[in-house]
């Protein structure tokens, strides 16, 4: 069933499908760029023979994010709607690649994480950074020149030969910090963010479960904080 397809046409077709369906940013990373991830969390652990990782981003509505926490329910609803949209996008690409004769596994946009490492089995942020969409900022989110941190991500692992996107030139967060003075660290209600200690995920998760969604959802919250997203709107 393996079809020899032109790398370029295949990549262009994927980009066209995604743009038509409303993706904001698309990038492709060869699987080797993610080989530094811990064992069990690499693309090849998910799909043996994985060659490429496709990262897709959909941007959030800025005015909703700007009005968090007042608009927190809208922000949460927006988050869940975009999550479902990302799943749809990932499935569309997967079905396309499957019809072309390639193996493909789409990773759900949200919804699960490992209890010990507190990461999903493929980390969307790392995949997106490797695919040249942006870099992981101080707030542990993907930050991009166009949208700041106001994006949501999804990833597809495939063995299809695709054209790699250029890597992102690091230093965006450092450069912005001259203007924003690490406003995300100041805005975080539970002080998860600091340059010295890195990002403390367990605190962030605890805050969501204990203060925002207690009794609603035990582990993965319905209501979201979003203040570090608000903080990073892009400072160019």
């Amino acid at each position, binding site marked *: 069933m393996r079809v020899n397809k032109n790398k370029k046409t295949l990549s262009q077709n994927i980009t066209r499908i995604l743009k038509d369906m409303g993706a904001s940013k698309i990038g492709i990373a060869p699987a080797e760029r993610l080989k530094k991830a811990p064992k069990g969390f690499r693309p090849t652990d998910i*799909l043996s023979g994985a060659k490429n990782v496709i990262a897709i981003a959909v941007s959030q509505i800025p005015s909703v994010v700007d009005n968090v926490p007042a608009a927190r329910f809208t922000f949460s609803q927006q988050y869940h709607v975009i999550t479902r949209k990302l799943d749809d996008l990932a499935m569309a690409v997967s079905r396309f690649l*499957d019809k072309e004769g390639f*193996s493909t*596994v789409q990773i759900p946009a949200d*919804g699960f994480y490992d*209890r010990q490492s507190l990461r999903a*089995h493929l980390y969307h942020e790392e995949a997106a950074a490797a695919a040249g969409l942006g870099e992981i900022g101080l707030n542990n989110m993907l930050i991009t020149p166009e949208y700041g941190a106001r994006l949501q991500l999804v990833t597809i692992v495939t063995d299809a030969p695709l054209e790699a996107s250029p890597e992102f030139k690091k230093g965006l967060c450092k450069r912005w910090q001259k203007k924003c003075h690490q406003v995300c660290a100041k805005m975080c209600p539970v002080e998860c963010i600091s340059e010295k200690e890195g990002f403390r995920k367990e605190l962030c998760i605890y805050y969501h479960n204990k203060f925002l969604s207690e009794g609603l959802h035990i582990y*993965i919250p319905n209501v979201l904080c979003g203040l570090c997203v608000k903080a990073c709107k892009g400072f160019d």
Partner: protein
Amino acid sequence: MKISNDGRFTKKVFDFLKSMDVDLVGIAPEERFEEAPPDHKPKDLLPSARCVVVGVLRQIPSVVDSLPENRFSYTQQHHVFNKILDDIGFALSRFLEEEGYESIHISSEGYYEIRPFIAYFSHRHAAVMAGLGELGINNLLVTPEFGSRVRIISVITDAPLKPTPRLEKHPCKEWQGKCKKICVKMCPAECISREGKLNKIRCRFYHYETLGSYLYGNYVFSLDRANLLCGMCVKACGKWGDFQRKEK
């Protein structure tokens, strides 16, 4: 009632579904549903029913193959497929209504009666009646093309469409020499008997008890606030042989 040329309009319906990326299309005339339980026949849902249009979509094989490791992807795929199927059913219903026919699309998933343990209209049986496959030992639709790795959508309508013939050979029976009824062995809850009887309550119970919490192995999860799905009997039944559909 509008009288139209059967063949031409049937082709239009087929083309419409193909344009929506449906992999297999079949049409089951209402008469083939005589053995369905009472209240579950096409005429019970649409009194003027003449046939059922059935569409089959293929699942992503590499995701199914990598079960149980990629169970999150499988579950997400299942839910996205539900939405895709509902969209197709709804679009076809609208298309048929615009052409002047009555039609009812059956929701892709979401409910079943507790007693008997069946949905109000069975997509699987409709697909069998439309000649797209046969029910296998695993109680799922087994298609010659994709095994059980499919999802189904059906639309009941009074449009006079040309029926597609039922399969002459039974793919599950054809393949049993090779697969040795592997689905029976692969079911983690031992719900499937070698004769092909499915203990549905046990299957449901396994989903609630083992996959229904917020914890799965080392993972914490909540996908669309739904259970994780097992999928092992779907994995068991890929394409086992060269069984080909007879082109008419």
